[in-house]
């Protein structure tokens, strides 16, 4: 029996896919639990959140600036 220390991430399936692709850049995942859960190393949480934010930002269309007219 083993107990592994870490941080569990709970997310939707889409975010999970982004997390998997991030993991290819920097290995932070300890265990892929299921479609909505993932166990990662605690010290990487901040980095993961920041990168995810950047990734999600790429997919949003901003209204600001286009509507000034």
């Amino acid at each position, binding site marked *: 029996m083993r107990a592994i220390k870490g941080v569990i991430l*709970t997310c939707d399936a889409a975010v999970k896919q982004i997390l998997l692709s991030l993991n290819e850049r920097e290995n932070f995942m300890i265990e892929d639990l299921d479609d909505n859960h993932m166990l990662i190393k605690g010290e990487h949480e901040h980095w993961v959140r920041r990168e995810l934010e950047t990734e999600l930002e790429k997919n949003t269309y901003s209204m600001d600036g286009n509507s000034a007219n």
Partner: protein
Amino acid sequence: MATVPEPDENEILPYQAHTLVTFLAKEPKQTLTRLYQAPSSCLAVFRILTPLERQIIMHLLWMESALPPSSLNAWVVRQHKKIYDEAIATLLKLNILTKPDKLSLNPEFKTNFRLTLTGSGTKGSFGQPLETGSPQDIEYLEGYALEKWESILHFMVSSGGNPISKYPKQLLYRSGLMTNPDLGTPRITSKGFQFLLHPPHMQLWQLLIQFIEMSTEDIVEVLSVILMISTTGLGREYTTQYFTEAQRNVLFQLSDYGLTVMDKKSSPSFTPTRLATTLTSSSPPLESSTTLSSGPKDGFIILETNYRMYAYTDNPLQTSVLNLFVSLKYRFPNLVVGLITRESVKRALNNGISAEQIITYLTTHAHPQMRKNNPLLPVTVQDQIRLWELEKNRLKSDEGYLYTDFSAQTDYELVLKYARELGVVLWENAAKRCFFAQADGHQTIRAYIDRMQASRQRAENEY
């Protein structure tokens, strides 16, 4: 004293306890008795009580002996017993009633409240107007109070862009309405934004309670000054000669909040503003204003389905509040135009302001024109603001331990059952025979596993 009124929708509505009542109810009995030594404090406290509580006090005020609770109970109709019981409980907590089994007023309160009503007692207990004092310019006083008060609120919303005195500033930081300045530029917090949504009277009292808690002076001195100035009249100058040194300090500090006008600590007189004189009354704290601001009285915001927002205001405070969650585009003498965007809302969310708070603000300050709409705010915009908030919470993380590699199914089940009873299991998978539990349950779970293994060892040794 009459019976509690017959059932009537409006009458049954529970009165919301005054912020100060809630605060006083937590104070020690001795402090309260000392507070009631001043007739003005008795009157001020009486004024913030609910009508029923006042009735009970008036009923007992001129009685020399105690009244058995059963006599008072006889006046109460059964279906309103609860309201009556609550009133008695409040009065006991305020130490106005001393014993639940024998109803009589706290002697200190009784004596001094009688003095109040009969107009006797020592000189200056309600403030002594300055004999040489000339009538003060009320317009000037209103302007002064408004300016001081708005500058504090403005400081909150503009991240300290608008300097104010040292004490109000510290008060905002300590009360958690703004973030700690040691951790970078202070910003308004979620609590602070909630504060802006409250009616002005409540805002004033919230700050004053914080002021009382933070004051280094004796709490009774501080409270009695605040309660005393709440019984003064507007437009008059009062002498400070009957005040103690500590009370004069408090009076001077209150000038930072626009409650009093006082040039310096040693000044022989002070002038209360409307903020002070309406503290324990139901009149609005500033002339003909329900919003405690120099901006428009009614709502001023128009929000369109295309996320455009038009705010008919020239008030810098309101503009700064909007700037917390709206991307402002143009500014005209009486109009500010902005756009609610993902970025502007996200910025607000990151500052701890919730989507619900933004929607409440927009609803409270909606322009009368908007009130014809049902629902009041465009649904698309409301939903989108909520969705942006959800977006922020797409990833949830929890620290803890993954328990895995159990050698037997029974072991797994036993440990999992134990962890479930602790209420720390966040995720489990029977097929993989592993589960994840919060970090704070780890010690207990480990101890349980150790015990389990030890007892198994013993069992094996016995064979």
